[in-house]
């Protein structure tokens, strides 16, 4: 009976609550449907405004690089979509016209609702039913006159969050869509080199992460001193003419995760490096120059062209030419400082007449930007036959080796991301320099 009483009291209370007049004002002035309708209208106008030209940084999924699309939204419901990527038109620039709409769905949704050959290739199921799995409908999360933030709709329904941005694209800077992609191609080529290993991301606190596979735009990261296998991670990215954006913030970097910092967008700096636009301090650069000099796959090379060496290097080189003529009756063609992968050593490599020769030197990294050379003519493998005969018969060749192995050299490059060419300048006599390239 006590239970029955309790039940009665509960029902009475509920009935009173239900009948109580609402004392809370509506937060919104309009109904949800009206607000959604307004959002649809507002975003429709925003997309078409000021020429309606936007750059979409598109990611189809979390495993592939991102691709740029220029979209010009027209008043009549058509959209011109341009791109230049490997999956469309054999990688050549391509543009197609189709239709678009902003519809009321999961909030306002931007839909590219008829097929566009430039764009929908990433949504095609292909033969496996999945294809790239890319979206063609996007929930509009927010937007202003410069940027619209989107989220893939179908991928969201499948549990993946793929957030994209569209930024306003200047017609002054890029009069045509093709202009943009021409510049993007040039920027992409100059920004990174697939021959350079170990790019470096340095956090605000100075912690360094080694980055590789950067030209594939599927970057790998691991803390300096660690390894990709043990504590590494991956993040796909997209490159634009202004910088680089990772698909998601780099939350696997403990420092960002702990401080709730979303490091995702980077801008190119005049020296080629990338500075994080989100925290203003995280930077991505190439490896230290001495490390770079040490990377054997690059095969750094000094060629004896004008301007690629200076000071005593020039003087001694001219003496070599003269002495070679006198001794061998030949024309000395060139002298290089290059890496011999077979012997894993640097060498002075020359061609005199029709003969080539090598003199092998040792190199040592002094600090991040300093190297030094040494040479022991008695050491096994110090020469090949022609190298030895030239070393023995041409005093100027000995002088060249001695000059190279005197003191330390400072390495410098204008571009810290792709440090090619790199200048090697004698610390003791700054007029003595050589320019190395790979």
């Amino acid at each position, binding site marked *: *009976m006590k239970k029955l009483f309790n*039940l009665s009291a509960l029902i*009475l209370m509920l009935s009173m609550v239900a009948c109580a007049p609402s004392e809370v004002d509506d937060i919104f002035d309009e109904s949800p449907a009206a607000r959604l*309708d307004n959002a649809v209208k507002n975003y429709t106008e925003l997309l078409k405004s000021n020429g309606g030209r936007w750059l979409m940084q598109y990611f189809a999924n979390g495993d592939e690089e991102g691709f740029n699309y220029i979209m010009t939204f027209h008043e009549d419901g058509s959209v011109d979509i341009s791109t230049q990527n490997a999956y469309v038109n054999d990688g050549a620039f391509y543009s197609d016209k*189709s239709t678009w709409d902003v519809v009321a769905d999961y909030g306002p949704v931007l839909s590219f609702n*008829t*097929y566009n050959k430039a764009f929908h290739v990433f949504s095609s*199921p292909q033969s496996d*039913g999945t294809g790239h799995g890319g979206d063609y*409908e996007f929930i509009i999360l927010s937007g202003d006159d410069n940027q619209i933030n989107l989220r893939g709709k179908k991928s969201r329904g499948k549990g993946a969050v793929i957030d994209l941005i569209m930024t306003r694209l200047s017609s002054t800077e890029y009069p045509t869509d093709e202009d943009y992609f021409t510049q993007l191609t040039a920027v992409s080529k100059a920004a990174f080199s697939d021959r350079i290993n170990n790019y470096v991301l340095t956090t605000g606190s100075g912690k360094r992460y080694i980055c590789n596979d950067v030209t594939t735009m599927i970057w790998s990261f691991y803390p300096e001193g660690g390894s990709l296998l043990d504590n590494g991670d991956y993040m796909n990215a997209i490159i634009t003419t202004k910088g680089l954006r990772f698909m998601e913030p780099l939350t696997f970097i403990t420092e960002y995760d702990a401080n709730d910092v979303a490091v995702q967008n980077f801008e190119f700096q005049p020296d080629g490096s990338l500075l994080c636009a989100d925290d203003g301090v995280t930077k991505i650069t190439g490896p230290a120059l001495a490390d770079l000099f040490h990377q054997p796959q690059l095969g750094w090379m000094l060629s004896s062209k004008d301007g690629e060496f200076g000071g005593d290097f020039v003087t001694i080189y001219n003496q070599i030419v003269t002495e070679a003529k006198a001794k061998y009756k030949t024309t000395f063609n060139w002298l290089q400082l290059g890496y011999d992968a077979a012997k894993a050593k640097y060498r002075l490599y020359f061609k005199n007449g029709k003969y080539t020769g090598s003199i092998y030197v040792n190199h040592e990294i002094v600090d991040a930007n300093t190297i030094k050379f040494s040479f022991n003519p008695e050491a096994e493998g110090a020469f090949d036959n022609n190298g030895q005969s030239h070393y023995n018969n041409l005093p100027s060749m000995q002088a060249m080796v001695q000059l190279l192995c005197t003191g330390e050299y400072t390495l410098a490059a204008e571009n810290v991301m792709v440090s090619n060419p790199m200048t090697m300048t004698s610390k003791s006599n700054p007029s003595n320099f050589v320019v190395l390239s790979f």
Partner: protein
Amino acid sequence: MKKYFKYISAFALVAIAAMSLSSCGEKSLGETIFPDVSDELDPNSYTYKFDKWLKENYLDVYNLDFQYKLQDNETNMNYNLEPATLSNAVDLAVLAKYMWFDVYEEVSGSKEFVKMYGPRILMLVGSPAINPQSGTIIVGLAEGGIKVTLLHVNNMNPMNIYALNGDYFHTMHHEFTHILHQTKSIPREFQLISLGRYDVNNWQSRNLGVVHSLGFVTQYGSSEIREDFAEISANYITKTDEEWARIWLEAGRGYATDGDEDSEDMENLVYYCFYYFENNDATSDENKKYIEEYRVQENEDGTYIYRNQYQRGVTPITTGEDGNRYDANGNLCDNAGFVLDKNGNRIPIQVFPVEDKDGVDGVAILEQKINIVRTWFKEQWGLDLDEIRNAVQHRVTTFDAAKLEELRQQVYGE
């Protein structure tokens, strides 16, 4: 009694509470919260001409919403799909009208019949729906007779009217038949014809020739009665005379397989309608070898031979005292070891048709089913199935590039 009192009291309390709750809700309804959306077409729209044509030819006439601008929420979200191209959507819209809606109007004498029973939504999808697990490809879907979805539109060739007829318009005829038999049921005699021979679970794995011989027109038709009925109707209308000739041929044959019919890998079983005896030795079933139809040549007298193949002598082949070559059985052979007849010609390998042991006269059953469907259309709906078929086939055989251009001009013209 105390227990009953408790239940009765509790019930009364809940009833009182419910009444008190409901009494609070007597507020007058305000204006609709939904915005007033105009359905007028914008003359400045990029797709205005097409939209106007669709309105005038589908919406106004058949109360049908022709959806060519894809919205994912109108599809099965488990599939990755792409929208149709605008140009293909236009082609399919005019062709669907010409090949389907106009046919029914022509035969029924008005648009009202299709308006009353036709689908309310026709949706286009550019890609097929591919099931990643099974690899099956869907090019047509229908949902309760209300909505028909035509897929793989971006791959269609508008000049290949045969393929369009088979892929798309067949689907529409099929679904339309469903709508009709949901109003006036499938005749009982049809329902009894193939009872016991349907396989709702494994119809996909059945061999097409075998299902023909069982009196079904397609594998899908062998799944259940209502699909059988719709498939008979749709295929009778859309399949050409040549295609039907093939069905009749296969329906009259016997089938055998050298695989395991009880295995789970039914769909990969190969069925044969012909066999021969190795070494021409019919004394043992072990010598019986099945061969594919394309290897078989039919003679004028109705017998069959193995195309370009001849009887080989049984080894060893030796040279007789007369200088001729003979096989182990004493048959005269040529130098290559082939047995020769008395005229010195090589002897073809005789081929035999597989005996039809399924106990079903596939041809008679198919004829019976078509007749029932034909009668049902006539008596229940006043539609002549043969007239529908003839109208469709006429449009198929007379279709050409000029006709397509003429149809397109309905949209793009002026």
